[in-house]
């Protein structure tokens, strides 16, 4: 038995995650060796695929945008001691909100007029989808993990129903809505850069990336610099102390979940308004679930989440390239590598802590 040693912050948020990724990459290398490919070359391809040319970077940042939103959603709930597994469904319903709004107004307003309303719609829809499990947790004691998972399935079923029976564009087979008017599309990355006089290739990267960065900044301020964030953290750390302080944990749980869902719903801005330009099925593609790993890896801090989102964005994009380049490395193998990163930096995030703590302790002892 040994006492936990408190590590300096830079080790906790810098060295430990780096060690975790290194361990994941080492195991991945073994897997790649086992299927008979060269791991060093694979890493090169992956890095090149993620950052090697402007289109690749565009794709990486486009994925990053989604992960920032879902990662922030998980983190804010986590600060209240809640494990929101329902980011996927909340993103899905948030996208529905964006889609319905734009379908109703796209002839009337340009994108910059629509954007504030679309953000509101994404937040309301995603937030409401998370607030129901939040209410059930706070006032009925239904466990948030169970209910948010269930709500993912309900969201999925609801979307299928709406797309197939209600919102489908008449006269076609695929369950998709009509395309939005082009004036309602968010500016693409290459358009923004073109306006600045820089010529880059076309990619799904769009204005939402900036919204994601602003969201990360606002969440940071909200959690650590406002009385509401203070209340959320108090409830998460010590509910008894929260009650003592006159903070209502039930209300806090409800509103935190609503906020968490609202952030997840922002995926809809990126996907529906920024990339797809229509409502369709399965546009969330697992971003909600990956957000859990992103948040864990980012230590529930927006700065960490932005960095972890970039890593996962690169994995998504570079992984696709791997699949392309190597005969033996399939799409599934890429999922294995992503899984290993999640395993080492999420589930086993603290595996190296005791080792590093011993090392730090010994160094400190040697110094004096």
């Amino acid at each position: 038995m040994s006492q936990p040693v408190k590590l300096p912050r830079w080790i906790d948020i810098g060295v430990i995650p780096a060690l975790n990724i290194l361990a994941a990459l080492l195991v991945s290398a073994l897997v790649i060796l086992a299927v008979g490919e060269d791991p060093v070359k694979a890493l090169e391809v992956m890095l090149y695929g993620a950052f090697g040319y402007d289109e690749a970077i565009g794709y990486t940042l486009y994925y990053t945008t989604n992960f920032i939103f879902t990662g922030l959603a998980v983190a804010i709930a986590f600060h209240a001691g809640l494990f929101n597994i329902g980011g996927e469904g909340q993103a899905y319903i948030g996208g529905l909100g964006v889609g319905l709004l734009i379908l109703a107004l796209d002839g009337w307003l340009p994108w910059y007029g629509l954007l504030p309303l679309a953000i509101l719609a994404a937040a309301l829809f995603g937030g409401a989808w998370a607030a129901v499990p939040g209410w059930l947790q706070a006032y009925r004691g239904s466990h948030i993990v169970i209910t948010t998972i269930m709500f993912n399935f309900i969201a999925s079923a609801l979307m299928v129903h709406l797309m197939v029976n209600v919102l489908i564009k008449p006269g076609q087979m695929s369950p998709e809505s009509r395309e939005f008017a082009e004036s309602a599309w968010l500016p693409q990355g290459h358009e923004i850069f073109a306006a600045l006089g820089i010529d880059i290739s076309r990619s799904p990267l769009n204005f939402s990336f900036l919204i994601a960065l602003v969201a990360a900044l606002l969440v940071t301020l909200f959690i650590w610099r406002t009385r509401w964030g203070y209340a959320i953290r108090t409830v998460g750390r010590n509910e008894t102390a929260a009650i003592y302080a006159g903070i209502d944990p039930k209300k806090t749980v409800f509103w935190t979940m609503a906020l968490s869902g609202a952030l997840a719903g922002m995926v809809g801005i990126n996907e529906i308004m920024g990339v797809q330009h229509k409502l369709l099925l399965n546009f969330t593609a697992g971003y909600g679930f990956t957000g859990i790993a992103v948040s864990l890896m980012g230590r529930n801090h927006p700065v960490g989440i932005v960095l972890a989102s970039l890593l996962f964005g690169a994995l998504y994009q570079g992984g696709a390239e791997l699949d392309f380049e190597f005969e033996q490395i399939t799409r599934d193998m890429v999922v294995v590598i992503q899984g290993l990163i999640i395993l080492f930096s999420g589930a086993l995030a603290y595996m190296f802590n005791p080792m590093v703590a011993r090392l730090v302790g010994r160094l400190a002892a040697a110094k004096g």
Partner: protein
Amino acid sequence: MTSDNIRPVAGGGKPPAIELRGISKSFGPVQANRDVTFRVMPGTIHGIVGENGAGKSTLMSILYGFYQADAGEILVDGKSVTIESSRAAIDLGIGMVHQHFMLVETMSVLDNVMLGSEGGALLEAGQQATRKELARLSNDYGLTVDPDELISDLSVGQQQRVEILKALVRGARILVLDEPTGVLTPQEADRLFEILAALKARGVTIILITHKLREILAATDSVSVMRRGEMVAHRTTSKTSAEELAELMVGRKVLLRVDKKPAEPKQTVLAVEGLTVTDSRGVERVKSASFQVRAGEIVGIAGVAGNGQSELLQALAGIQRISDGSFNVGGARTVGHDTPLDPHEARRLGIAHVPEDRHHMGLVTAFSAHENHILGHHDWPAFNRGLLLDREAAIADCTAEMERYDVRPPNPELTAAMFSGGNQQKIVLARELETQPKLLLVGQPTRGVDIGAIEFIHNTLVQMRDRGAAVLLVSVELDEIMSLSDRILVMSAGRIVGEMDAAGADPRRIGLMMADIPEDEVA
């Protein structure tokens, strides 16, 4: 090192039952024990006193095999041993009675005693053997407990007896008791010391860890004092005094008695009428309590832990809803079942609350000191600037308070968990007293607080009183109630069973009221 019993003393030339030589242990940069040497002669009761964090618990954990010492030697009966686990300690005849009992509440006494030494896959044989052993022990030592009773049906004192029996059944000849009287009534404590005396008479060696000097003086043969990880003195109990021991523990002179003028009570601030509190399981925790607290007086509530004091305090602070009766604050606001009070409003009414359990209620230990400083006040304009919290204001305020209350280290950025118990309590006190409350609710103000800080906290409470606050004090330390209060209420089983002026109150009578049970059961 001053010592008068560290050399082998008369004992028939027998080696010491326990001898520690030069034990050192550090956790990272913290040295918990430094070159600790002491010995306990067989068949004696040896006390170890020291402030919180002096290293007593670490030392005993080393003796019981929870930790391994970095350096030093342990000798049992004169032979050098290594104790790698609690199993090894048990095999050497060392038994431990923990401060918090390690009992399975839903199982019988017999099963609890047998737990871990069932002696086979089937329980029958083990049960028979244990039953026989229990009968023998209760005969020998007067440790009577019904083996078939459920633990949850026993009083705390009886539960502790089961813990002692557990150790004895496992063949303990050396018994370590860690703060054994914290949860006992004075009568139960007396009874415990009788049992310890009986054990000693039959050759059992006892190490008694406590912070209550009175118990050391009453029960032990010799005593060692620890300060900051070191053994600073050994004394023969008959040749020392409480004042000397306190000075050795703290390293300076301490005033054990609270110095206060007679109270000058003024208008009634808190009037409680038939207050009843029912918990979530429907059990009445406070039963129709009625009393008053006036401005400028300290009213102490004496009672054994768990007799409704906590619920009473929480009801008055707006944390627990009351189920019947009412209370009035400052003549302005009457709180009843249908007009509930929440902690938020309570603060606005001028009620400050220093909760009994600072780790679970008074502090968020993961937060920094300055964040804890605004707990409950986080929505005050003083700590906010528009939408954002005014961090600088909180830090400045916290720094000033830390200075005034002598919190060490005076670092507002430090996490609350990193402060010692006394300093944590000062952080809570500073926050609550700073509001200049009309009514101050204080629970266990000095639990787990070192002697130096106790003196400070007591004086601060008296100052609050003299400035005109009405103070309601709940403590399970009868000494504390006796020395601080102007009036004493005694609580037992949720009822207020007695009220008296503190001047001339008889602790023995209060003790009997606290127990609220016929004297034969106490004995």
